[in-house]
């Protein structure tokens, strides 16, 4: 079984993960994430859970200031992604990435509506927050990958403007992007013309309604929760960093759902299912499905730390307990190990699904609130993170999930413990 997995399944999973597109997608999005988290701090202050404080902020006029910062960070997540993905793609191909990132940004802007009709009937030219934020995400990703791909072809075939010898390196570098840039921008402009003149729409609006909205809906469903819940530990079971890979692939949809929820709040409406709120968001994934590390291994760690009789497990429990509260569990996954260990596969793969389903149900029934735009670094400790994203109820639910993890892992870790104690005794007897 182990050999079959190592020889047949893992290479196939790896081949998919190592495709240039997936690599660029996952690493390119890493440029949006920090800015979303920074922006969320401003949002958190503007919407602090003490009404007296937020009213005072509005009164002295600080709220718009906070929103300015928020709109220019969290609010342009897909704009940043459009640069980051083309940049990463081209960089991975071994060329300078920034020229491609800039071309991708221009193309992404060409795709979207820029004419806005004001209340008095006059039209202004404006880049709109709707599209720079969550709703432009798939367009940004697609554009980033296509630009990265085409730009790399130009570089590989060396189709660039050649400067005569003697021209400084910096100067000739500045002209490298000219030919690929011109070709790509003309192509995207033609695409815009076709959609605009033919369909009286923009490519971005079309991509949103035909591709992105359905994908967001699929993510935001029981099936989506089960799928993500299974895939993260499944990849980790083979020693592959499942959280980064699945998180990376799903983040565009999860972040778009988060942004859509915040847009509902910004419009002055209540964040509910009826108003189109999304249950499964970035916070849903970070703070419930990978909390204390992939597989929600906190229960395993606590048992090893406090109750295990095997010296090896106790040692790993000691090493693993502090990182666990920052949602890091590599020492545990590789030390016990959980990786390729059939004895722990069941709770490891089951626990995230269980947690996800419980949380989904809690939000669906209104027991716990939906999440707005407050996103946290994934290393934020549980219970504190719950308090910040959703309030007291969310924190309590997180606590209950941690307790549940202990009991789900209990029968399995006991079995592992007994086996290890036996092995350790045998090893001692032999000495």
């Amino acid at each position, binding site marked *: 079984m182990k050999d079959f997995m190592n020889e047949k399944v893992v290479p196939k999973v790896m081949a998919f993960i*190592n495709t240039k597109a997936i690599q660029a997608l996952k690493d390119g999005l890493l440029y949006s994430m920090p800015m979303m988290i920074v922006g969320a701090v401003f949002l958190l202050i503007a919407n602090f859970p003490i009404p007296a404080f937020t009213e005072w902020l509005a009164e002295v006029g600080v709220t718009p200031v906070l929103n300015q910062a928020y709109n220019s960070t969290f609010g342009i997540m897909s704009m940043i992604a459009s640069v980051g993905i083309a940049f990463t793609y081209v960089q991975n191909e071994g060329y300078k990435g920034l020229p491609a990132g800039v071309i991708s940004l221009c193309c992404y802007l060409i795709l979207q509506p820029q004419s806005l009709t004001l209340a008095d009937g006059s039209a202004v030219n404006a880049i709109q927050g709707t599209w720079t934020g969550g709703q432009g995400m798939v367009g940004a990703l697609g554009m980033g990958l296509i630009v990265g791909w085409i730009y790399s072809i130009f570089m590989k075939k060396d189709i660039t403007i050649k400067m005569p010898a003697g021209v400084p390196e910096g100067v000739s570098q500045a002209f490298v992007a000219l030919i690929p840039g011109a070709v790509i921008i003309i192509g995207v402009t033609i695409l815009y013309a076709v959609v605009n003149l033919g369909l009286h729409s923009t490519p971005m609006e079309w991509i949103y309604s035909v591709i992105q909205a359905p994908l967001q809906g699929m993510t935001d469903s029981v099936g989506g929760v089960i799928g993500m819940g299974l895939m993260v530990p499944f990849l980790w079971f083979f*020693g*592959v960093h499942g959280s980064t890979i699945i998180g990376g692939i799903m983040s565009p949809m999860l972040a778009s759902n988060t942004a859509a929820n915040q847009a509902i709040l910004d419009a002055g409406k209540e964040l509910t299912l009826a108003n189109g709120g999304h249950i499964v968001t970035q916070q849903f994934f970070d703070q419930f499905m990978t909390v204390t590390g992939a597989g929600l291994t906190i229960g395993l760690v606590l048992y090893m730390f406090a109750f295990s009789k095997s010296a090896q497990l106790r040692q790993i429990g000691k*090493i693993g307990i502090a990182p666990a509260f920052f949602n890091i569990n*590599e020492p*545990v996954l*590789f030390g016990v*190990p959980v990786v390729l260990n059939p004895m722990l596969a069941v709770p490891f793969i089951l626990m995230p699904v269980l947690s996800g389903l419980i949380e989904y149900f809690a939000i669906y029934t209104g027991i716990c609130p939906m999440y707005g735009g407050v996103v946290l670094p994934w290393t934020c400790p549980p219970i504190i993170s719950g308090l910040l994203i959703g309030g007291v109820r969310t924190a309590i639910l997180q606590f209950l999930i941690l307790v549940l993890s202990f009991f789900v892992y209990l029968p399995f870790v006991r079995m592992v413990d007994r086996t290890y104690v036996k092995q350790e005794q045998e090893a001692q007897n032999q000495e």
Partner: protein
Amino acid sequence: MLTIRLFCNEGMSTSLLVEEMKKAAAAEGTEVDIRAYPINDLDDKAKGIDCALLGPQVGYLKAKASKTCQQLGVPMDVIPMQDYGMCNGKNVLAFAKKLAGK
């Protein structure tokens, strides 16, 4: 002086191991310079070092990493899973020394 760089996903979990390796080196009296970085910085941070070690969770990037390291003339390998998990600084240091040929 033995210069070792460890590469993992974000350079976070591996920093635990780095501390243990430094302790092990101090106990042996070996002079070392050990740091952890995200795997994405491999091109940059692997220049001119004695050996590069990959965390097992990014072992799936071994093929690409070994190409990069070959170009730089730096020996590279993936840290054995259990030594990584147990934060066994002594074993990983020995592993690195062998790899670096020192």
